[in-house]
C-alpha cells in the first residue's frame, strides 16, 4: 500500500521537474548568460552596481543595441548588412565636415546624414534584390565604397569638429530626475528606437513578412509578398539605424575615422547571441538588444580583468563562432 501510494507521488514529482525543465529550456540562453556576466562585473567593480554605473553601461551599449536591431531585420530576411560600421564612421566624419564651415549646422548635418543613410540602404537593397548579388558581397562592397568615399571626402584625416548641439544626443543627460538624479539621453533614444522597431517587427505585416522571406522566399512570393520591396525596406531600416547609432557614438566619443570599425560584426554577433538564425526565418529584437548588452558586459569584464583592448576582437570571434555553433546544434533546419 505504501509503495503504491509513493509511486504516483514520485512520478508526479518527476513530471513536475520535467515540465519545469521544459520551461527553463525555452528561456533563450542570452538572458541567463547576461545575468551571470553582469553579476561577475558587479563583483569585480562595485561602482558598476550603482544606478549611475548601470546607466553609464546602458549609455555605452545603446549604439550597439540600436545597430543590432537593424541587423535583425536584415538577418531575418536571410541577408547580412556588413556596411553598418562604415556608415557609422561616415555619419561622424561627414557631419564634422558639414559643420566645419558653419557652426549652426548641427541638426542640418544629422538630416543630411540620414538622407545619405537612406540612399545607402536603398542601394544595398537594390543591389541584393534586383542585381541579385548575395548580400555578403554587396554590403562588403558597400563598406569599401563608404570607407573610401568618406576618406576621400576628408582627405584621409579627421577634419572639423562636432558642435555641442550635434553631440547633445550622445552625451547629455536629462537632469533633476527624482531618485535616480539624471538619465542619459542616449538610453532614452534607445528606448524610443526599441519601441518603434518592436512595433514594426512584432506588430506590423512588415515584421511577419521579413521573417517569411527568410524562411522561404519562394513561398512568400507565391503568397503575394513583394519580396524585393520587403528586402529593400529591411536594408533601409538597418542603414537608418546605423546613422542613429553614428550620432550617438560621435556624440559620446567625438570625431574619429575608425569609430565604426568592426561594429557590423559586433551587431551580427549581438543578433545571433540574441537568437537570430543566420540565413533567416528566426530573429528576436529584444534578444538582439540583450545580445548587445551581453557583448558590452563581456567587454567590460575583459577590461576589469586587465586584458588589452585589441583582445576584444579575439574574444568576439570566439563568441560569434560559439553562438552560431550553438544555434546550429539546437535549432537545426529540418528539410
Amino acid at each position, binding site marked *: 500500500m505504501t509503495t503504491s501510494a509513493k509511486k504516483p507521488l514520485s512520478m508526479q514529482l518527476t513530471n513536475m521537474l520535467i515540465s519545469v525543465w521544459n520551461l527553463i529550456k525555452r528561456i533563450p540562453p542570452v538572458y541567463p548568460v547576461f545575468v551571470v556576466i553582469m553579476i561577475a562585473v558587479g563583483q569585480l567593480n562595485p561602482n558598476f552596481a550603482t544606478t549611475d554605473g548601470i546607466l553609464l553601461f546602458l549609455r555605452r551599449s545603446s549604439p550597439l543595441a540600436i545597430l543590432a536591431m537593424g541587423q535583425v531585420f536584415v538577418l531575418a530576411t536571410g541577408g547580412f548588412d556588413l556596411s553598418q560600421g562604415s556608415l557609422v564612421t561616415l555619419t561622424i566624419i561627414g557631419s564634422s565636415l558639414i559643420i566645419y564651415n558653419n557652426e549652426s549646422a548641427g541638426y542640418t548635418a544629422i538630416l543630411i546624414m540620414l538622407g545619405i543613410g537612406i540612399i545607402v540602404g536603398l542601394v544595398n537593397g537594390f543591389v541584393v534584390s534586383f542585381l541579385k548579388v548575395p548580400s555578403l558581397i554587396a554590403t562588403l562592397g558597400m563598406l569599401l565604397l563608404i570607407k573610401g568615399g568618406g576618406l576621400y571626402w576628408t582627405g584621409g584625416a579627421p577634419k572639423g569638429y562636432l558642435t555641442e548641439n550635434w553631440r547633445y544626443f550622445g552625451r547629455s543627460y536629462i537632469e533633476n530626475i527624482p531618485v535616480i538624479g539624471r538619465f542619459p539621453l542616449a538610453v532614452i533614444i534607445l528606448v524610443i528606437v526599441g519601441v518603434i522597431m518592436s512595433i514594426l517587427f512584432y506588430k*506590423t505585416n512588415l515584421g511577419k513578412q521579413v521573417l517569411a522571406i527568410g524562411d522561404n522566399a519562394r513561398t512568400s*512570393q507565391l503568397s503575394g509578398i513583394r519580396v524585393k520591396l520587403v528586402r529593400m525596406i529591411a536594408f533601409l531600416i538597418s542603414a537608418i539605424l546605423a546613422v542613429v547609432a553614428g550620432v550617438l557614438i560621435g556624440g559620446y566619443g567625438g570625431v574619429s575615422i575608425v569609430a565604426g570599425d568592426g561594429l557590423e560584426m559586433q551587431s551580427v554577433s549581438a543578433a545571433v547571441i540574441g537568437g537570430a538564425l543566420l540565413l533567416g526565418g528566426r530573429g528576436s529584437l529584444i534578444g538582439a538588444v540583450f545580445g548587445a548588452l551581453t557583448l558590452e558586459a563581456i567587454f567590460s569584464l575583459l577590461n576589469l580583468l586587465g586584458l588589452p583592448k585589441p583582445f576584444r576582437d579575439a574574444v568576439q570571434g570566439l563568441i560569434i563562432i560559439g553562438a552560431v555553433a550553438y544555434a546550429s546544434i539546437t535549432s537545426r533546419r529540418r528539410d
Partner: protein
Amino acid sequence: MTSEVKTNNVPTMEVRNIDKSFPGVKALDDVSVKFYPGEVNAVVGENGAGKSTLMKVMVGAYKQDRGTIHFQEETVSFNHPIDAQKMGISIIYQEFNLLPERTVAQNIFLGREPSTLGVVNVRQLNKRAEAVLTEIGVESMILPTAMASSLSVAEQQLVEIAKAISLDAKVLIMDEPTASLTSTEVQLLSDLISRLKEKGLAIIFISHRLAEVFEVAEKITVLKDGQYVGTAKTQEVTPEDIVYMMVGRVLDHYFPPLGSTEDFGDVILRVEDGSNDFLSSINLELRKGEVLGIAGLQGSGRTELAQALFGAEPFKSGSVELHGKTVSIKNPSWAIKQGLGFVTEDRKSEGLLLMQPIRDNILLALRSLQPLFGWIHPEGIRESRKLVPTLGEQVDIRVDSYSKEVQDLSGGNQQKVVLSKWLASKAEIFIFDEPTRGIDVESKASVHDLIRELTLQEVAVIMISSELPEIIGMSDRIIVMRDGTIGGELPAEASEAEIMLVATGQDNSNSAEPS
C-alpha cells in the same frame, strides 16, 4: 492471385516484416517482399502507399523501425547508403544525382577514380567510362567527356544506370524512371532493362504507368497504405486486377458527388490564346462552382498552366478575362488581390514557411493583401484571434496549438494549413496542383470533401492531378494537356482510357498503338 508466387531459385534481396513510421504517418507496416535475379519486379501502389519509403530502407537511406533486410540470404544492415552500394544495391532516384558541372566519366566514377598516389589517370577514367557505356550500349549517344549538364534527362538517366553497372550492382532500383521521358526514350530504356535482366540483375521498377509495368515486369508487387498486398505474375493478371489490389475497394467513398449543371454560375475566368515560353494557344473557361480537372503526362505543361494563371510565369500573349474584364496577371501578388489562390504541388518548398507557427502561415496571404506597415490585426485582435481557429476547425487541422511550427506537422495537416491560407485570403478561384500528393488516405478524402465544399460556396476550382482516379472522381469537366497546349476537353466521368488517349496524342492525330 494475392498469394506469394513461388520460385525455386534464391532471392537476391529480401525484406522481412519491415515497419517504418514518421511523425503522424505509419509509412510501412509489416512489409515482406522477395526480389529474384534476372527478374523485373515492379512495385506499384498509390501515392503514399509506401513505395519510396521501402526503397529508401532497402538502400540504407532510412533505417527501419522493425524487420530485417537480407541480401543473398545473409542478414544485412546499412548505416549509410554507401554500405548498400558497396554490397551491390544501386538506386536511380527520380531527382537526378549527377553533378551538372562535371563530365560523364567524372560523375560515373566519383569517389572511385582510377589513380596512382592520388593522381587521377584521366585516360583510364575516360576509357573505363566508355567501357561501361558500351556495356549498356549507349556509347554512340554519350561521350565520357561530355558535361552532365549538356545531356538530356534520358541521357542523364542512362549515365546513372552506367554508374550502377560500374558499381557491379546486383540489385537495381529505378524510381519512376520513365516519368519525364518521351516514348522513344522509354523504348530505349526498356530495351536496356531487358539486357540488364539477362546479366542476372534483380531489377525493381517503380512506376505509375501500368501499361509500362505490364510491358517490362515479370512480377508486380502491390503496396497499399504502407502494407504489402501481394505479388503477382504479370502473365496471370490484368491491369484491372492490379488496380483493384492497389485501391482495395472499387473507388467507393473516396470522392464526394460531382456538381450538377445548375450549380455552375457565370464564367469567372476566361483565357484566350494564352502563350508563353512553355505554353501555346491556351483557351479555357472556368465557371463558378465547378471543378475543372487538368490531366496530362508529366512535362505536358500542367503545372506551367497553373503558374501562368497565377502570374508566377505569366502569359506573354493572348488575353485573360476575370469576371468579364480583360486583365493581365503580372505576378502572384496581383493574382491574389484578384481572388486567386494556388495550392502548389511542392508544399514544403513553395507552400509553407516551415519554421513559422501555423498561425502565421494561415494569415500569410491575407496579410500580404494588407498595407505593409499595417497592423497585423486589422480587424482587431479579437476578430483576428478567432479567424485562425475558425479556419482550422473548418479544414480540420488536428493540433493542440496554432503556435506550433509547421515543420512539426504531418503531410495531411500541412496541406490543410496551405488550404486555410487561401480560405483566409478569401480566394474565389482555387488552383490545386496535386492536392493529395504524399498525404495519407484519410486526409486525402477530407481534402477532396473540402474541394467540393468550396464549389458550393461559389468558388471555382482548377485541379491538376497526375492521378487519373482523382481527376475522374473530382472533375466536372476535364482538360487534358499535351506538349504545352490543350490536347482536348472531356466531360465529367470520362474513362482513364479516354484521358490517356488524348494525353498521349492518339485520340485522332494517329492511330498507332501505344508502344
